[in-house]
């Protein structure tokens, strides 16, 4: 178990990075608490796997340091770092039995056979693999294999941090849910620091206490799932998290009043000095938009039923505004007026929250 800290970290796959775009991971500082469940969330190519490989030691960062507790591990190879990693595609040693697969990392470290046996059986029970210990690993299904990859990390009692690189990608949908709750349960029982990389917001938000959202090599926001939802620091987070994502509307700011298409909009934290020359936008989640007797006039375009609520798509000139209404709430036809919940309406300047 360990506290993981990244200090002034930067990485580029090029020898001589010149432009900003050459950096796969731009300068960042991050800290993950000991025993915490974390997620690294972002679209493909945002640098999250690069970051993961830097923490596990498969990559050496171009700049900056990686610390586990009080140790600088930047220059250490993966096997000296006490980390475990579960990859996107299950990695099992085909010719070995499930038992030998689980015992492999321990045997490589010269642990006494009796201890190996005890440890393997304990972890197998934890992962519900007892019944198939003698089977050949090659014959297992994808989720079984993924459990073995995870097990190879768990058997080691010295593991500081366990990392998951989109571990559920190849798992059947109905087993995804089971494996996900298993992971959550394991985290609660073992209390190991875990970092879970994914581009799936559901996986990230259900697994983690702390979510780091990345985009184009930078950390856009780090916070609890609730913070990400209620107060996205960047319009990207607003888009990326939530289903449907946050409404982002063009805005103007004059005389202390934020306006959308001429209509004044009250925002949670009004900016004191308007950022000069910046593109201003209003961000409000569909959850915090309501029909009202007055407000922004819109035309109702589409209604989609998601089961628990209805997603209504409305239009004001060229701007689409989505909102959620309950199954039993009345739906105005054709034209209506919208109101934004002030506490959850933010002003963004060049994408970043302005407050």
């Amino acid at each position, binding site marked *: 178990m360990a506290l993981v800290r990244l200090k002034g970290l930067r990485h580029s796959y090029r020898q001589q990075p010149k432009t900003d775009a050459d950096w796969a991971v731009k300068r960042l500082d991050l800290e993950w608490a000991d025993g915490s469940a974390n997620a690294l969330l972002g679209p493909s190519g945002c640098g999250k796997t690069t970051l993961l490989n830097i923490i596990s030691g498969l990559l050496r960062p171009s700049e900056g340091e990686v610390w586990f507790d009080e140790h600088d591990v930047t220059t250490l190879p993966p096997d000296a770092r006490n980390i475990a990693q579960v990859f996107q*595609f299950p990695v099992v*040693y085909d010719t070995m039995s499930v038992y030998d697969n689980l015992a492999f*990392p321990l045997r490589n470290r010269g642990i006494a056979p009796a201890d190996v046996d005890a440890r393997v059986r304990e972890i197998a029970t934890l992962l519900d693999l007892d019944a198939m210990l003698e089977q050949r690993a090659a014959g297992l299904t994808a989720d079984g294999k993924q459990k073995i990859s995870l097990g190879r990390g768990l058997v080691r009692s010295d593991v500081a941090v366990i990392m998951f690189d989109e571990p559920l990608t190849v798992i059947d949908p109905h087993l995804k849910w089971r494996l996900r709750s298993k992971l959550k349960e394991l985290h609660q029982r073992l209390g190991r620091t875990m970092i879970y990389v994914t581009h799936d917001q559901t996986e990230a938000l259900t697994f983690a206490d702390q979510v780091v959202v990345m985009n184009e090599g930078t950390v856009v926001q780090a916070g609890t799932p609730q913070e990400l939802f209620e107060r996205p620091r960047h319009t990207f987070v607003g888009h990326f998290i939530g289903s449907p994502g946050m409404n982002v509307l063009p805005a103007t700011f004059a005389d202390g009043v934020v306006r959308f298409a001429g209509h004044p909009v009250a925002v949670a934290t009004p900016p004191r000095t308007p950022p000069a020359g910046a593109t201003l936008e209003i961000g409000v989640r569909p959850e915090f938009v309501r029909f009202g007797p007055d407000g922004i006039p819109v035309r109702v375009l589409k209604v989609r039923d998601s089961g628990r609520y209805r997603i209504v798509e409305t239009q004001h000139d060229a701007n689409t505004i989505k909102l959620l209404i309950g199954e039993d709430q009345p739906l105005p036809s054709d034209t209506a007026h919208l109101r934004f919940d002030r506490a959850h309406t933010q002003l963004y300047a060049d994408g970043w929250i302005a407050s």
Partner: protein
Amino acid sequence: MSTKTPNQKAWWLVMPVVVLVAFNAVIPLMTVVNYSVQETFGDNQFFFEGFKWFRELIESERFHDALKRQLLFTGIILAIEIPLGVAIALAMPRRGPWVSVCLVLMAMPLLIPWNVVGAMWNILALPDIGLLGRSLNAMGIDYNFTRQPVAAWATLIAMDVWHWTSLVVLLAYAGLSAIPDAYYQAAKIDGASSWAVFRYIQLPKMKRVLTIAVLLRFMDSFMIYTEPFVLTGGGPGNATTLLSIDLVKIALGRFDLGPAAAMSLVYFLIVLLLSWIFYTVMTKDEAD
């Protein structure tokens, strides 16, 4: 509901293949079977002899000797080329500009016509003017492949290794390239030694292509003809008279079509049987 009406015209669609296979395999094979049970004389006279040629062949010392030489040759070839090919494939770069250079270099011997390979090595190994032969003699090693059986064998094996190890290298390399990086990364994290990586990741992942490599090298080396024919012509004496060389001597040298046909069939059955054994042994694990 749709009912399928039999359309006999479909037979015409498979005709090209049937004709090809018939002329390519079935008719020649059956002709050989036909010859193998008959005595031929000039003027196209044939007399039925039953299994006489087979009995004679099985009892003949000459066939036994050729078969033993053949088995020894193939055994040595496999024992050298498979491990050597795997070793070279492991040593080849996996990324970067050198990959294509290595691959082209490796593919080169495979592109040379077989009789040219024989001729090249023949000249190379000549004790009086060949680079190899002369150098060896200059170093004080008495080497003359046209007179010494051991030298003839050594030259033959060196030539085959030079010619065909590349095939094993290319197959093994293809197998290695197909292993995802995650396996190496996981092994690194699990603290596996490089031997363990080879034993538990690379070798199992290469197994299928190695099965193919072993089968190809077995069959090719068991049926090798051109290169030893050009290099040594089966000599000195009968030292390098392998099965195919002996077969040609009987069939074309003496025009004994009956015994030659019987030998062809036995030869064919041996190749088939051994290939089957190799295949069964090497794929046994996968059935479990």
